[in-house]
């Protein structure tokens, strides 16, 4: 393993003073700038930590098991991203596209978790207007979610770019539509049927969501089958740089979440009512 690690990837020499690509350099400088952006928000969260005058308090709403799963999903999307780049660099378009779509899918699942989480918290009585925790939490994680959304759109765009023929595009549209239909139906099931998986399944049966789910699953399989039949032997490597830059952005969003997960969830999850706060009772389960 380590030997592979030391084998450097041979960079092409660009026609610039440093031999580095302009756009890649721009992306790195932008990421440095974005560090300051998220840094300022995380610092704001920490300054206001434990200064809520009223509830709900973090220990009443934060749900570590759920967020751990979504964190894991986002980490795995980073892995998928780097595999996608590897595939495209090796000129294996089908592999590359599969991993691009997986990255976008995992990112979307992460966003689904965030929608679920926000919905839960609002039901527990925490809104951006409620208290300092609500304000700092929603704006920070919401802006991170916005970054993820932009990343997902970018990746779907990249998937489109590496799929030039009409057949490939149809397969792509089918798979993506199927995936979002599935996600939507599952979210709808969760919101209407509670959060235990049995309840979700029983709610799905007999709902329009069921139709959506069936379409979704068929769409995913159909689309992926079509895509798997296409895209062999095409020259895609000139897109590797585009994908690498999209990937840098994606990984950055991931590392921001690594920090957010540690600082806001793991470290602050036990934060209760600070001295001088007003006690808060959670509402009964909806």
């Amino acid at each position, binding site marked *: 393993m380590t030997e*592979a690690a030391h084998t450097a990837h041979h960079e092409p020499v660009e026609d610039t003073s440093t031999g580095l690509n302009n756009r890649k350099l721009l992306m790195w400088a932008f990421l440095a700038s974005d560090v300051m952006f998220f840094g300022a928000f995380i610092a704001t969260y920490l300054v206001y930590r434990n200064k809520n005058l009223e509830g709900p308090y973090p220990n009443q709403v934060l749900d*570590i098991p759920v967020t751990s799963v979504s964190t894991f999903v986002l980490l*795995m999307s980073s892995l998928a991203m780097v595999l996608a780049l590897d595939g495209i660099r090796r000129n294996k378009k089908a592999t590359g596209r599969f991993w691009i779509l997986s990255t976008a899918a995992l990112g979307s699942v992460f966003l689904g978790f965030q929608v679920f989480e926000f919905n839960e918290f609002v039901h527990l009585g925490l809104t951006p207007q409620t208290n300092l925790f609500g304000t700092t939490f929603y704006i920070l994680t919401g802006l991170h979610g916005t970054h993820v959304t932009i990343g997902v759109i970018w990746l779907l765009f990249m998937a489109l770019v590496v799929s030039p023929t009409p057949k490939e595009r149809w397969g792509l549209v089918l798979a993506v539509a199927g995936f979002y239909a599935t996600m939507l139906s599952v979210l709808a099931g969760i919101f209407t049927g509670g959060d235990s998986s049995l309840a979700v399944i029983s709610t799905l049966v007999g709902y329009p969501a069921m139709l959506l789910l069936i379409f979704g699953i068929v769409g995913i399989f159909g689309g992926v089958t079509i895509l798997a039949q296409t895209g062999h032997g095409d020259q895609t490597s000139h897109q590797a740089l585009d994908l690498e830059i999209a990937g840098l952005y994606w990984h950055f969003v991931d590392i921001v979440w*690594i920090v957010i997960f540690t600082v806001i969830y793991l470290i602050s999850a036990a934060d209760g009512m600070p001295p001088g706060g007003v006690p808060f009772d959670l509402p009964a389960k909806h």
Partner: protein
Amino acid sequence: MGLIARIWNALFYHRANDWWLLPKTPLSDPEPDPAYEGPLGRTTAIAKQWLTAVTSGDRHATPWYYAWVGVILAIITLAEVWIFTFETLGPWFVPLLLILSLMKFILVVAFFMHLRFDNKLFSWIFGFGFLIGVAVFLALLALFFKLNG
């Protein structure tokens, strides 16, 4: 110091092209090589060059290698959640979590974002922004919590 330097080198060893030591072109050579074209010129040629470089049998990190990094990331995340369930760690709780988080950060930045293999300049740019950010916001937090009053 030596240890830190060695860790740094181990994590961020680069194949640099000595960007600081310009010019690459010998001064006596009237025609710069590679030919200097324009701000973004010769895109097609560069794409071809790229293609050659990528397919010329250079050994890269393999997908399995990335998968291993992913496994390590997953294990660290599991460890973090595991640590979270302990209630007896006391003062070790926060530093431990921060160290684990930093490890994940470094793994993603160094391997998934290829800083480990890429030109030194990218590390400098990102590292400079990151260090300024960390220093400034730590100072801000210190003003609120340690130096207060």
